[in-house]
């Protein structure tokens, strides 16, 4: 099974590689770049100084990643005896709904900016839509995919906690929405989110393999990893394309759903600890600015703070990738407590 999915991953990688350059050309030709008309329109001095030179970089490259995932997963199901079940359907619905939401946000920031004069979806509206989508996915996870319990790692055999429907749906919804937003917030430096996602995915792949989770989960993960590798090639510094909200929200929610389906919900915040820290750094800064009228970081989220302190962008990204490996190892160990020798 592992060999099969590795091959799928490589094929997905090849497919995305072939399409990347034409896709990039297409994006540049359409002018799908954020509506900054030169550095002078960037009001924030930090962004003007450190990121102003990136004006013109297309965003929304996640659309190609999603396309690869759908096409390859779909092809696999068509060409093999794999039957589409609610597990697969839930994963696809997650990618589709969050992908569309992210795509809408990207379009408002780019092609539709002149009409709306607003930088993306308003936070309140985005959050409401995310909660609605998260609720739908959580419902499917509980009632259709049958994920009604959570494994709590405890030595020697762990604890299986059965969840009441309302409790489960609330937990799943908050996890999915939180993850989507955390990944979205993390997407600020070239290659940061994509690289960290790949690292977390590889650890999740090990968890899935060790726990022998049914193939649908591994398939989608394999295809996603394969599609992201060529994307990362063009996304690392200096990025030729950004993944945009299309990619970050859909991948963030996908990661949450994959961990839930892998019976490793408890390990998720540990494997993705860097994402959690980045998200909380933003919340913390918002809190102190509003209530204490004070900033404790030069700029939030925290990866920008390090950059503002003088770290090169590549240094920040590399160190955060390294930190992801450390937290991934920790999360892996936690996920396997009481379950694997």
């Amino acid at each position, binding site marked *: 099974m592992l060999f099969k999915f590795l091959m799928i991953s490589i094929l997905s990688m090849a497919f995305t590689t072939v399409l990347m350059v034409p896709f990039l050309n297409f994006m540049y030709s359409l002018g799908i770049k954020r509506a900054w008309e030169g550095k002078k329109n960037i009001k924030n*001095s930090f962004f003007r100084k450190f990121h102003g030179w990136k004006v013109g970089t297309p965003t929304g490259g996640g659309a190609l990643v999603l396309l690869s995932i759908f096409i390859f997963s779909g092809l696999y199901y068509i060409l093999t005896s794999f039957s589409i079940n609610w597990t697969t359907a839930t994963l696809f619905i997650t990618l589709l709904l969050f992908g569309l939401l992210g795509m809408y946000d990207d379009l408002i920031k780019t092609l539709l900016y002149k009409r709306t004069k607003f930088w993306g979806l308003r936070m309140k509206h985005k959050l409401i839509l995310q909660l609605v989508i998260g609720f739908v996915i959580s419902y499917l996870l509980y009632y259709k995919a049958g994920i009604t319990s959570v494994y709590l790692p405890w030595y020697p055999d762990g604890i299986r906690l059965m969840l009441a429907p309302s409790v489960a749906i609330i937990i799943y919804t908050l996890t999915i929405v939180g993850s989507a937003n955390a990944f979205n917030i993390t997407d600020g430096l070239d290659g940061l989110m994509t690289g960290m996602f790949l690292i977390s995915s590889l650890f999740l792949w090990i968890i899935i393999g060790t726990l022998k989770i049914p193939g649908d989960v591994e398939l989608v993960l394999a295809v996603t990893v394969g599609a992201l590798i060529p994307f990362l090639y063009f996304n690392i510094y200096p990025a030729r394309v950004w993944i945009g909200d299309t990619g970050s929200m859909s991948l963030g929610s996908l990661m949450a759903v994959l961990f839930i389906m892998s019976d490793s919900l408890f390990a998720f915040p540990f494997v993705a600890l860097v994402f959690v820290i980045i998200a909380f750094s933003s919340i913390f800064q918002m809190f102190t*600015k*509003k*209530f*204490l*009228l*004070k*900033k404790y970081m030069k700029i939030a989220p925290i990866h920008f703070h390090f950059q503002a302190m003088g770290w090169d962008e590549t240094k920040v990204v590399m160190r955060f990738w390294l930190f992801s490996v450390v937290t991934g190892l920790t999360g892996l160990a936690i996920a396997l407590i009481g379950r694997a020798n």
Partner: protein
Amino acid sequence: MKKFEELVKQEIDKYLNLNVGGVYCKVPYIFGSSWMEFWRTGGKGSVEQIKVEAEKLFTLYDLVPAEMTEFERYKFLRDKRVGIDCSGLVYNVYDQITKELFNKPLSSYVVRFAGLIGQIDKLVFSFKRSRRIASYHLTSDLNSFPVENLKDIRIGDMIKMKSSDPEIGHVAIIYNIDISQDEIIYAHSSFKTKTVGPHLGKIRVTNYDLPIDKQDWEEVSAKGDSISTNASSEEGLGLRRLKIFTETI
């Protein structure tokens, strides 16, 4: 008495000459917000609180007041809701005075309701008390009495006025009385006059036997009408004095 008058002028002057970051900042008019926004001054802060809040906000937004024009500083503070409303100005002036003279805050003396309920309310709702006291509380019969004769006017008296919202009302405070010039100077924070925010206004006394609204008010509203009509004695408005500030002060 003299110390009381000096304190009134001193406290009002602080609002009129706010210094933030070494430069003068005109204090905007901000309509008082709910006490639930307790981390902000919300239009009811003392001068010190307003100054600290302004300094924090300038720092938060990486702005140097000395590098901005006066209008830019004023607009920034107004947009960030840093300022004072009419009752906030009068309340805080009185509050500093009662602390200075009686070692107690004004909240110990001002009630919102009559009788026992008022006392319980004072005790239970003591948190951010200034946010709960409006102009009509200060000028109500519970806390003040009318000054019937203009000749009895003192620095520190209030002028009870009406506003566009009859339930809220408006209040000004007497800043200076110049008998030789027959002039009364008052201070208030308003947004419907030509000058917005805390400022001084002048009344020329033409007849000491008439109530204050019948004198010659220099200030006009934004529409150009005299604001004396807002202090009509026939409507029970006009001069009032806080009960705690008796003759012995």
